[in-house]
């Protein structure tokens, strides 16, 4: 269930998509009340998605991650500010560099920040699975030490699925 990105309370029923410069597609989910408040009608958009998105990332900031404001990716140069402005990543490394902002954002968009899909196989299938289990165990330990038990439970389930597959 997607929650309204502005009030964080109601279920989102208005789904907006904005295409800027042919390439940047942004989506935003609002409840009826917030959409009305922002003046969203089917035809007129008198606000910029960027303003609202910026507000969304603003909330993340307020959740106490001050260091993130200084973050800048050594590989592609994407800064937190640029990410906040476009909500687009510049390279895979950004996911780690901006992790503290990424995780809550993904929770808002997908209701989760933990992948549970297919694991890449290929020539080093076993190695990949083993490596993944190792990384998951590390994350599990971290989640437990941070008393994030919901996340820990999800990780534990994921590890179980993967290790059961390996036995086959």
């Amino acid at each position, binding site marked *: *269930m*997607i929650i309204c990105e502005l009030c964080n309370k109601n*279920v*989102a*029923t*208005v*789904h907006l*998509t904005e*295409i800027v410069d*042919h*390439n*940047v*597609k942004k*989506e935003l989910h609002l409840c009826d009340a917030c959409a009305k408040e922002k003046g969203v009608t*089917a*035809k007129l958009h008198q606000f910029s998605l960027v303003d609202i998105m910026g507000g969304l990332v603003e909330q993340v900031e307020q959740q106490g991650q001050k260091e993130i404001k200084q973050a800048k990716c050594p*590989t*592609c*140069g*994407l800064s937190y500010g640029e990410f906040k402005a*476009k*909500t*687009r*990543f*510049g*390279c*895979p490394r950004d*996911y780690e560099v901006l992790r503290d902002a*990424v995780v809550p*954002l*993904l929770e808002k*968009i*997908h*209701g*989760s*920040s*933990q*992948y*549970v*899909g*297919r694991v*890449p*196989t*290929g*020539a080093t299938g076993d190695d990949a699975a083993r*490596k*993944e289990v190792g*990384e*998951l165990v590390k*994350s599990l330990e971290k989640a437990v030490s941070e008393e994030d038990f919901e996340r820990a439970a999800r990780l534990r389930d994921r590890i179980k699925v993967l290790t059961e597959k390996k036995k086959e």
Partner: protein
Amino acid sequence: MRPVDLKELASRQSGWLDAGGPEADIIVSTRARLARNVVGFKFVGRSTLKEKAETEAFIKDRLPTVPELDLRYMPLKDTSATDRLFLVERHLISKEHANADWPRGMAIGKDGSVSIMVNEEDHLRIQVLRSGLRLHAAEEEAHDTEQLLAGVLPFCFSSQFGYLTACPTNVGTGLRLSVLLHLPVLAMLNQMEQVFRVLSRLNYIVRGLYGEGTRASGDFYQISNHVTLGKSEAQTVAEMEKLVPQIIKFERDCRQRLLAENKVRIEDRVWRAFGILSNARAISSEETLEHLSAVRLGVNTGIIEKIPIMLVNELFIATQPGHLQRKQSKTLSATERDVVRAECVRSALNTSH
């Protein structure tokens, strides 16, 4: 690698237009799309022109090393606007991909059901398009295609976030699973608002394929999943396999009811539409879609007997601007297009019965 032959593409029915598949009266097509990025390159939005060209070349060089896919490549930078529009109309590339102006391309497999956009928002957008309701098969074929490509292209992946994409709305499975539905009676009875509301609550995106707002031109709607993280591919397929049949049933029930209670109303709508399409000398795209929708309903309910559904499906596409202009081999003004469109529809409908 062999180039794409647009003439050949235009002359044959694309696999997914064969009007076959389960629930083909309501589900025109099913699409599974996977977003992937290649290790060692910046994402498209952050790359310089030179870097974009390098990424394209890197990918393009490796595509022929997967002979099972039998891919043909078409760089889009040097194709005409009409040809790009043609590809959008065939659902092979997105509007954004057509309109972008950097090094990018499209690869297409032997029967046209597998296509890959190179350097759209992500390095690769793998797409499988099948006729009718075929969620499991489409997702599986997309996965198989992706696995073959993963053998020659390293994809960015993290155990926590899954397949890494430029936009956070795609990260994880990178899977966008969608169906294209024809819902003329639900639209006629103003039930689409309700459908929208229910689907949004369940995290599904609904949009009209043509036009905007709640009544889509041609009464075609696309439903796709929104979540790509925290749900597996199998879960997404299972969810949609439960959800879509309910919408199909809703449309079918409304059709039955309307036919039982007020058959004349539908018959009148259908035959008036047929009359206009068979006789107009100039007709706009908007009006064509409106009447083709009624004709399609007519064919599906047996009101019109001698027109094959495949012909109607093809007309939806053949009457669009890119297709019309390709056929005439020149760009046309809006007025000229309206005339050519009318000719196209008239001849198609009059020769088939």
